[in-house]
């Protein structure tokens, strides 16, 4: 009691002295001397009669209050403040001093919490700072640049319709990268949704980012969530979930587990300024404080919650001030100053881990980008404002100035970095677009640890529907391998990475026909694709079955390497892979069985002349479309006319496109950045864009296509089946 009294008196004197000197002195001025005070001290401090109350307010409040509480304050008229101050009520939670002054602590402070920074606007150090050495600084800068470029690429990819959604970190790159740099890799990240820079720092590859955004079968999240909902257990980055602030109480629980395990690690939970209004913000901070969980709460105050400015979000002095109410040490940091964020997070981490308690860090960095690709922020804020932040306060530029001043970075390195990142991203996007979607089974797994009977039943029902109406469903999920685990088999030698089969190819018999027809009709694609992609890099398999050239002088007309080897008609050039599953075996059998039949049907002497025409035309087409050498192949796809009644033999239809999204997507077959979309007025029910590409080629293929189609239509082998040609871009 005595020591408490002395301390509080001292503090009060200090505050009073300050107040006299500065009329706007605030609560914090007193407590800042004990920035991370322990609860015992804090409980003693909090209820002090603050001399900082705006005198006008207190007068009004006193007037208002005297009447209502006059009785209980009967003795306050003549009480001696100082004497009464020494008395205290011993209440659960700690002693509370009495006062006879009717004063409310102020709801707002005249002077706002200052913002910690290390670098000035020109990238020059304001204090002596040597926490960040050259190697670290260069990595930080490189990752910030990578993050920026990645954001640009994926943002554009969304605009082109390749992915459904994206959110950039523009303006907040430093928060992402610097906090990641300041943490240990054992620290668990509970992200909001604008923290992918941390994953980048921890080694999540650009390919992995692309996989998630495109939702292909390599996405560890199995294509179940919208783009940017990253998660990686390997990188201690808990999967993003869209609801705001739900991760905060969870972070408290996770950190409690770390505490129980006595781990040298903490949990770092991120949130935006808007999220602080959620009940879970309160729950998270309060639980962490009460349970003494080692959590760093990082609030990225970027000024906007979608379109709601912070002035319409809360009336407090930002977010840092809220920590104090929960008994959590808090700090406000300049989020555009990479060094300040780094040192603040590092200090916060030390405190959280060593003292086993939560810490709150508020970073200020304007959201330069839109909230997401679904948002146009110019509707609610001025372009000038955005531009000003973008140009004057860009965290990446500021950090670059600093490392350049140190002589750690040059223009040449900048150029190299940017071009290398761009290349990696182009490659990542190209690769990911070629990958198939996750198999349909993944729709039903992971709801529970094991699928219960209702899910088993529903999967069975769904598969029956798919078999009945294959054209209703996206082919890139089903594909011929939907019923097998053959993985990417069809892509390897029949289809280019950017294309998968139309929706119908789920049944084995279709697959078989597809195989036989494509091999039969399209030696060009198979051979070229095969020769360029596989044989060139691998020795010819010993068991390759050599087949004599087809009759009627094919050899004579063999040109342009179209028939570069003799195996074009046989399935045997494909290496025997033990992983080939039953559908493939079925296909092979069908292929071999139909081989002789087809030979009889097609007068092969017409092929070479056609192909010779075609290849030159293809080359012309290629150059006109801006495709590079070796990017073209075509496959012939058999189709059942009745299954796609709106398709003519050339894949043309007068119907308007019914799947604009798909259309857009398929239009960008030739790599990033895409060609302008040029669609002829054709569409198909299942794949408008592919049909249009087909049309682009059909002029040069028509004679052949017509010939094949007519032959097959009239044949007894494929009665009623039509062969469609479709052209695709390779590489």
């Amino acid at each position, binding site marked *: 009691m005595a020591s408490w009294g002395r301390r509080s008196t001292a503090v009060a004197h200090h505050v009073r002295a300050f107040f006299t000197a500065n009329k706007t002195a605030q609560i914090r001025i007193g407590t800042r001397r004990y920035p991370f005070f322990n609860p015992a001290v804090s409980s003693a401090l909090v209820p002090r009669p603050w001399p900082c109350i705006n005198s006008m307010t207190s007068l009004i409040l006193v007037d208002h209050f005297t009447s209502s509480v006059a009785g209980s304050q009967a003795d306050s008229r003549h009480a001696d403040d100082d004497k009464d101050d020494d008395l205290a009520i011993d209440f659960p939670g700690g002693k509370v001093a009495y006062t006879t002054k009717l004063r409310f602590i102020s709801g707002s402070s005249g002077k706002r919490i200052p913002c910690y920074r290390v670098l000035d606007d020109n990238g020059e150090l304001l204090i002596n700072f040597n926490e960040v050495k050259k190697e670290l600084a260069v990595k930080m800068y490189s990752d910030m640049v990578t993050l920026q470029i990645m954001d640009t690429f994926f943002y554009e990819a969304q605009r082109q319709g390749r992915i459904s959604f994206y959110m950039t970190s523009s303006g907040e790159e430093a928060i992402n990268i610097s906090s990641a740099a300041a943490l240990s890799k054992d620290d668990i990240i509970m992200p909001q949704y604008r923290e992918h820079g941390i994953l980048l720092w921890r080694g999540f590859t650009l390919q992995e980012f692309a996989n998630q955004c495109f939702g292909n079968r390599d996405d560890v999240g199995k294509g179940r969530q919208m783009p940017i909902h990253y998660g990686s*257990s390997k990188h201690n980055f808990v*999967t993003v979930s869209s609801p705001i602030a739900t991760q905060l109480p969870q972070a408290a*629980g996770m950190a409690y*587990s770390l505490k129980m395990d006595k781990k040298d690690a903490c*949990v770092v939970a991120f949130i935006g300024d808007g999220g602080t209004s959620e*009940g879970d913000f309160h729950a998270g901070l309060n639980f962490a404080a009460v*349970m003494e969980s080692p959590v760093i709460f990082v609030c990225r105050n970027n000024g906007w919650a979608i379109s709601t400015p912070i002035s319409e979000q809360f009336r407090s002095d930002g977010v840092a001030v809220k920590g104090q109410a929960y008994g959590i040490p808090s700090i406000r940091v300049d989020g555009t100053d990479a060094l300040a964020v780094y040192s603040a997070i590092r200090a916060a981490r030390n405190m959280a881990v060593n003292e086993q308690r939560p810490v709150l860090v508020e970073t200020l960095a304007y959201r330069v980008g839109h909230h997401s690709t679904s948002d146009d922020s110019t509707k609610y804020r001025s372009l000038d404002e955005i531009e000003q932040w973008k140009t004057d306060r860009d965290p990446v530029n500021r950090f670059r100035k600093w490392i350049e001043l140190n002589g750690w970075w040059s223009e040449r390195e900048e150029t190299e970095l940017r071009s290398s990142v761009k290349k990696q991203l182009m490659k990542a996007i190209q690769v990911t677009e070629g990958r198939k979607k996750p198999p349909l089974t993944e729709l039903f797994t992971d*709801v*529970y640890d094991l699928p219960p009977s209702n899910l088993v039943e529903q999967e069975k029902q769904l598969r029956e529907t798919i078999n009945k109406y294959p054209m209703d469903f996206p082919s890139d999920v089903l594909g011929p391998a939907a019923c097998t685990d053959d993985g990417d088999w069809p892509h390897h030698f029949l289809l280019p990475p950017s294309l998968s089969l139309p929706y119908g190819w789920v049944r084995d018999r279709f697959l078989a026909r597809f195989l036989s027809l494509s091999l039969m009709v399209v030696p060009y694609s198979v051979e070229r694709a095969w020769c360029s992609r596989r044989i060139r890099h691998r020795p010819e398999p010993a068991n390759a079955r050599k087949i004599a050239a087809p009759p009627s002088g094919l050899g004579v007309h063999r040109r342009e390497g179209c028939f570069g080897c003799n195996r074009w008609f046989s399935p045997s050039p494909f290496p025997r892979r033990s992983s080939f599953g039953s559908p493939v075996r079925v296909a092979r059998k069908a292929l071999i069985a139909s081989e002789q039949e087809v030979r009889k049907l097609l007068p092969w002497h017409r092929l070479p002349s056609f192909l010779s025409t075609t290849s030159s035309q293809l080359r012309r087409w290629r150059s006109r479309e801006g495709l590079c050498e070796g990017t073209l192949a075509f496959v012939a796809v058999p189709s059942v006319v009745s299954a796609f009644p709106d398709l003519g033999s050339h894949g043309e239809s007068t119907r308007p496109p019914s799947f604009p999204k798909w259309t857009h997507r398929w239009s960008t077959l030739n790599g990033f950045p895409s060609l302008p979309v040029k669609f002829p007025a054709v569409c198909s029910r299942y794949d408008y864009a592919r049909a249009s590409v087909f049309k682009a080629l059909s002029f040069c293929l028509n004679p052949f296509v017509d010939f094949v189609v007519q032959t097959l239509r009239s044949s007894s082998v494929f009665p009623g089946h039509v062969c469609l040609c479709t052209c695709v871009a390779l590489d």
Partner: protein
Amino acid sequence: MALRNIIGKRIGNGIGLVGRRSLSTATSDVENRNAKSMNLYSAINQALHLALETDPRAFVFGEDVSFGGVFRCTTGLADRFGKARVFNTPLCEQGIVGFGIGLAAMGNRAIAEIQFADYIYPAFDQIVNEAAKFRYRSGNQFNCGGLTIRAPYGAVGHGGHYHSQSPEAFFCHVPGIKVVIPRSPRQAKGLLLSCIRDPNPVVFFEPKWLYRLAVEEVPEHDYMLPLSKAEVIRQGSDITLVGWGAQLSIMEQACIEAEKDGISCELIDLKTLIPWDKETVEASVRKTGRVLISHEAPVTGGFGAEISASIVERCFLRLEAPVARVCGLDTPFPLVFEPFYMPSKNKVLDAIKATVNY
């Protein structure tokens, strides 16, 4: 199946309940030899003791659990296992469940208590959007399967709006969680241990009316009862009655009354509401050709509707009468009018007769 010592009428007499009652599970003599007569809260308490004892990574927490809980279910846990593993939390349901999810995501068994099921709604977001989707949304990289949320539910005779609700149907619409409701002490212990050890988040509703009222021989040892397995607790041939939790005792009384009129009722305890055991119910309805579902929650949108639809889908041609539902009224749970609101024995009995004589 042995159904013994059904004493007392829960509804219809103003005082509430009388004496011992039990809805026991058939068990072997060996188990019964080591069994001890106990009420439902003690069985829960014993299960929690076992859970904490057998798994050092198990935690029990919630509002007021430290001193034993307002229903005494957590009595003695804090003393035995320490304040670090059994602790009070701030009064904040979304915080409790969120905290539990985080704890479970780190490989712990988080046993969270919501003081009354009526107060679980602030945690609805955490349960529906977070716990239920934690595994799925991460592609099975993360899961919070160790989470079990215990909450006392249902009428208690004087609970009014906010101490009587049966919110199970809300959670039955959420893929990714399991919903389990025991009917008796022996069931409660075995099912709770199963829920705690199940690798999926579970919401475990405890019939609070039975906490002290239901007394049964409960085996002392550590045992688990399977989830998603319904149990035929009374064989019959004329009509199938489906229910869960405290309502089963009412239905059981109705069955006994009906038997006097020569109606043979088959009574099924669903135990796990999702994912539920359709097959057992279906098999029974195929046998009897009639079905009645009864629950305390309001009839509209209750889980009875789901059972009804599923049975009609599967047994349409076998049904000899429309599916009957005897449930709570579509009003907020009332205080003074509670006896009128409840799906009482005679309401059930009438429905049985009407269905059989349809």
